[in-house]
């Protein structure tokens, strides 16, 4: 009777743990949906009065990853470039490069996650984002969204 009771308790615990893990895994398969929610709730409001570009530039990244966005910015318009990542990934850094690959802006050592600017002449630029490396035993992945809003 005692053995049976212990076995049942063990199996219940095992099942609960396994079920929890399954939930995490099913959540993983739904990562894009989570990113959409995350971006909508936490990133979009940071564009404030800038009209968002409706491109969905969001990905699930891990420490050490990079992301790049290539886009044309139009002359005489004001832009907000927002790099919005889940806090679990740490402080993301980003650079803006001109069409020749020369650096125009670097967020390193700046506290803001966005860059407000105007362009005098229409030009293609590249936004390069880095997720800092981590030496954690268990790494986490998180959503990173590169958002562009314009006005004026």
């Amino acid at each position, binding site marked *: 009777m005692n053995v*049976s009771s212990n*076995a*049942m308790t063990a*199996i219940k615990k*095992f099942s609960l*743990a*396994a*079920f929890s*893990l*399954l939930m*995490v*895994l099913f959540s*993983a398969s739904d990562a*894009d*949906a*989570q*990113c*959409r929610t*995350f*971006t909508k709730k936490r990133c979009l409001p940071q564009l404030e009065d800038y*009209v*968002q*570009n*409706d*491109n*969905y530039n969001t*990905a699930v*990244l*891990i*420490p050490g*990853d*990079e*992301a*790049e*966005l*290539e*886009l*044309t910015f*139009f002359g005489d318009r*004001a832009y907000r470039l927002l790099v919005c990542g889940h806090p*679990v990934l740490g402080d993301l850094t980003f650079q803006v490069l*001109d*069409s*020749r690959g020369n650096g*125009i*802006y670097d967020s390193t050592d700046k506290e803001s996650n966005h860059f*407000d*600017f*105007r*362009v*005098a002449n229409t*030009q*293609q*630029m590249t936004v390069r984002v880095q997720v800092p*490396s981590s030496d954690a*035993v*268990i790494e*986490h*992945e998180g959503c990173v969204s*590169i958002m562009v809003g314009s006005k004026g």
Partner: protein
Amino acid sequence: MRRVYDRILPGRNASVLLALPLLFLFSCGEAPTSSSGGADEAPQVEMDAEGMMPARRQKAFKQIFHAVPSPIETALLLERSGIRFDAEALNPIDKAMGYTTTEAQAVNLGIYAGDLSYSVIFNQNQQSVDYLNTCRRLCDGLGVGDIIDADLIARADNNRDVRDSLVHIVTETFYELNARFRENGMEEVSGLMAAGGWIEGLYLGTRNLSSSTEDLKLRIAEQKMTLDNLLGLVDSYPPTEALTKMKQVLTSVEAAYANVTVTENEAAATAAEDGTVVISGGPSVQYEDAALEEIAASVAKIRNLYAQ
């Protein structure tokens, strides 16, 4: 022991059901540690539910995005360039019923998004709601009809006189659509819709070249750069018959842009007096009117190919 299993998970496949989590357990490495509890626990639980989880891969990689101007952004440029609203240039809404294939629905969703944005920016209020309804019809066909539901249409209708509200509704809606296409693995639809929107924006911008302002002509010439972005976007998706066809027709527009010269120059960021950062320099764009005429003819041809 067998009876214990049976009590917990009655049925013949109980052991299989218990083995399944075990399989996942050993195939996915170490399970996450629990949070430390206390005051930080509640926010952590919330974050777990939206936007983070234990990493499913170890090797870092580079994610590259290609973005094109949204139809609203293009319509704003057209308006600022002095273009006049031309209702005749829009794709008639009654043609939407005839778009029955995924390819036709996706490209024309982009084309109608262009018309919708153009109508919104030029304060064509009833037309804006009509085009939103037309987009809804195509979304239904593509299996994402819930994005443009009756509530959204009602919200647009109630705000038909407030341009900023309509702009917000349109950008939010197409952002949601792009996100859903990504979630559902519908890259082909996403790429075709983006291409349709780009084509329609250029089509609308080139309907009356003879009376166009110099600013509008420059904007049209500058689309050589956004075409480059668009081709990069189309190329970034797994090739399908429809995407390959789209790439081919866009290549014909690219050929028409051969006589527009973009000369690269170094760009630099400087602070203006009001503190705004201004990126000066960058490319200069040279073109002749004949080149723009060629572009107009080229884009009209492919727009009418898809919108017929």
